[in-house]
């Protein structure tokens, strides 16, 4: 009985967190004045609504990319090209918003550019059955070079030029709530759309026949094929959808904290974190959200520790989100198992 309870993730999580808090409290009681001051600072950081706000802002682009990666991976195609799609999406979102004057058109164009990259990835991995990781590595190199080149050609002017972006929303009552207002209800529209996408994705994947089809293609393509599912067509659709979402994550990255600007290699490895979040979240939209928000919290914490003058070398603080994610992986996310056919191309009868 106890054992059955203990095996539930959230019970274990809560118990371990509470135990950690108790230990922390005892340590604080034993420790000296200086340690207590630092701890005080940390509590100040954690208690501020801006902390949650910053974590969400950091997490949302990763979330969109992870959801995109999830669709592709459930269909059995590894998508390590998240980095490429995010970067190209970011560039297109910025450029198109800058020229058209509308961040919405920018978002749409970013989605389309992601779709185009998805098409390339699909041609290579599904049609040509090339190695999925090499295709992604090549696409990532391509994205860095192509966006940098296009950025040079289009923006020769030297001065910094922000594009129109998504404005922060203001809800009548909610935005003025004491803590929650700042933390949750003063973001731009993309953040709410991304959050809304989590239940939508969950519903599509687990409650619609297409979701079942998708997962069966990733889990057992041979069986899916025998019941008449066109495996490679489903994979194509999955990768294209994936590319669209990830491309849009680039738009979120550009507009998240109100930068609305572009710089070479803007994504700076964030696509790989999103890729990790997919596996971390056990191939589940809610899990992907938990993975990205955990990373966002870690990132927001390390940045704030610095701002409040904690005397730890900043490079070690920069490691913090990665270390936290790694620890959580070990403690909570054991036995994450992907789709059985992940990584393997499917050879249709007669095609081989």
């Amino acid at each position, binding site marked *: 009985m106890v054992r059955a309870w203990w095996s539930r993730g959230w019970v274990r999580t809560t118990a371990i967190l509470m135990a950690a808090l108790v230990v922390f409290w005892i340590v604080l009681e034993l420790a000296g004045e200086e340690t207590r001051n630092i701890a005080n600072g940390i509590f100040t950081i954690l208690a501020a609504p801006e902390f949650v706000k910053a974590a969400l802002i950091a997490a949302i682009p990763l979330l969109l990319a992870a959801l995109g990666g999830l669709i592709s991976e459930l269909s059995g195609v590894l998508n390590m090209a998240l980095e490429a799609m995010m970067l190209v999406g970011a560039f297109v979102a910025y450029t198109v918003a800058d020229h058209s004057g509308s961040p919405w058109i920018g978002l749409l164009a970013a989605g389309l550019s992601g779709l185009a990259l998805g098409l390339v990835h699909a041609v290579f991995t599904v049609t040509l059955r090339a190695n999925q990781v090499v295709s992604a*590595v*090549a696409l990532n*190199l391509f994205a860095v070079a192509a966006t940098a*080149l296009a950025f040079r050609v289009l923006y020769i002017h030297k001065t910094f030029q922000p594009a129109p972006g998504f404005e922060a929303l203001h809800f009548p009552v909610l935005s003025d709530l004491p803590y929650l207002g700042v933390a949750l209800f003063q973001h731009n529209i993309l953040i709410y759309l991304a959050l809304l996408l989590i239940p939508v994705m969950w519903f599509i994947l687990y409650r619609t026949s297409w979701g079942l089809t998708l997962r069966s293609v990733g889990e057992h393509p041979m069986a899916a094929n025998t019941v008449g599912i066109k495996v490679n067509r489903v994979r194509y659709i999955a990768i294209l959808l994936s590319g669209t979402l990830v491309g849009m994550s680039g738009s979120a990255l550009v507009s998240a904290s109100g930068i609305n600007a572009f710089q070479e290699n803007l994504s700076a490895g964030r696509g790989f974190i999103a*890729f990790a979040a997919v596996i971390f979240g056990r191939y589940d939209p809610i899990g992907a959200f938990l993975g990205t928000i955990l990373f966002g919290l870690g990132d927001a914490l390390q940045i704030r520790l610095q701002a409040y003058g904690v005397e730890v070398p900043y490079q*070690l603080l920069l490691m913090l989100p990665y270390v936290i994610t790694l620890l959580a992986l070990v403690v909570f996310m054991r*036995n*994450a198992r992907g789709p059985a*056919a992940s990584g393997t191309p499917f050879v249709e009868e007669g095609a081989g």
Partner: protein
Amino acid sequence: MAEDISQNLAPLKPKARFSLPIANVAMPLLSIVVAALAGAVIILLMGYDPLKAYAALAQGSFGNLMQTSETVKTAVPLLLCGLGIAFAFQSGAFNIGAVGQMYMGGLAAILVAGQFAGLPGWLHMLLATLAAFVAGGLWALLPAFLKVRYASNEIISTILLNYVAIYLVDYMVAGPIKSGGYGGAPTSWPVLAGVMYPKLVPQTQLHLGLIFALSAMVILFFVMRYTTLGQRVRIVGQNRVAATHAGIRADRVFLLAFFLSGSLAGLAGAAEILGYQARLISGFAPSTGYDAIAVALLGGHAPFLVGLSALFFAGLQTGAVAMEAIAKLPAQLVDLIRVLAILAVLAASSPRIVEFARKLQGEDRKW
């Protein structure tokens, strides 16, 4: 997951008979020509001279002894990391962590090579190399251990550890091992005199690291083909349960394979620092470990082919420098041309194209 990948991609046994593979030579050549033409169109559109650009590419990669040696020198870390990744792959795991393992190797190498003055040069060199070997191995052992003990996915943990290693190097060169001279710039202390790898041929970039890389290539070939260890690694990679039933300690084999994989990447770090850069700076090899994934997979995980594929990648890299410096192409355009070539080779080596090529040949020749 990775087990499935390796099943699919594990190189097939070569057959003894050899016949002239017209289509299989023509296809990759054709794909490179197509890529070159596509590149030429882009270069023209950007307002540069494609002939001049490609002449510079050729000149910069294999144009003379010095440039060829630059290419070979660039291939050394790619080869070492690629061999490591290929080896881990055989054991059924994806090692995306060559970047981090290489950084740890470089860090360990400079830690040893930058102090302990007074040791005999050759011993010092050997110790620094050994330290890099062990450091890279241990950095890879961590995710392997997490996988064995906690079933943590090694793809995530190796990616995460890459960042940890990169920031650790940033910290070390700005703090504990920062140089005294140079206006105290964020670089490490230098490699002590006499500890740098000797040049194999004077007036070239060929250094001792090349010998390490080539030996690793040959040794790995023999280990995989003729030893029980190689056999065990492969069995574990293909089916861990079956391996356990066959009396193989799968976990141990897996840990060993990952350790060696990381060690080779660590060695790549030492080769870059002790053979060329002479000092550790932050971001000293930002892309080698990732490029090496493509190198390993293009080489089909067969050691000698990994070597050729490393040379191909390196040639593109050194040639790119000349395209920028001699033909005056912008760096970003040069990168684009480089990627086109990689995509072309990837397409040419994809199973679909290979099948197509065989059909074109009109024979069902057995290989």
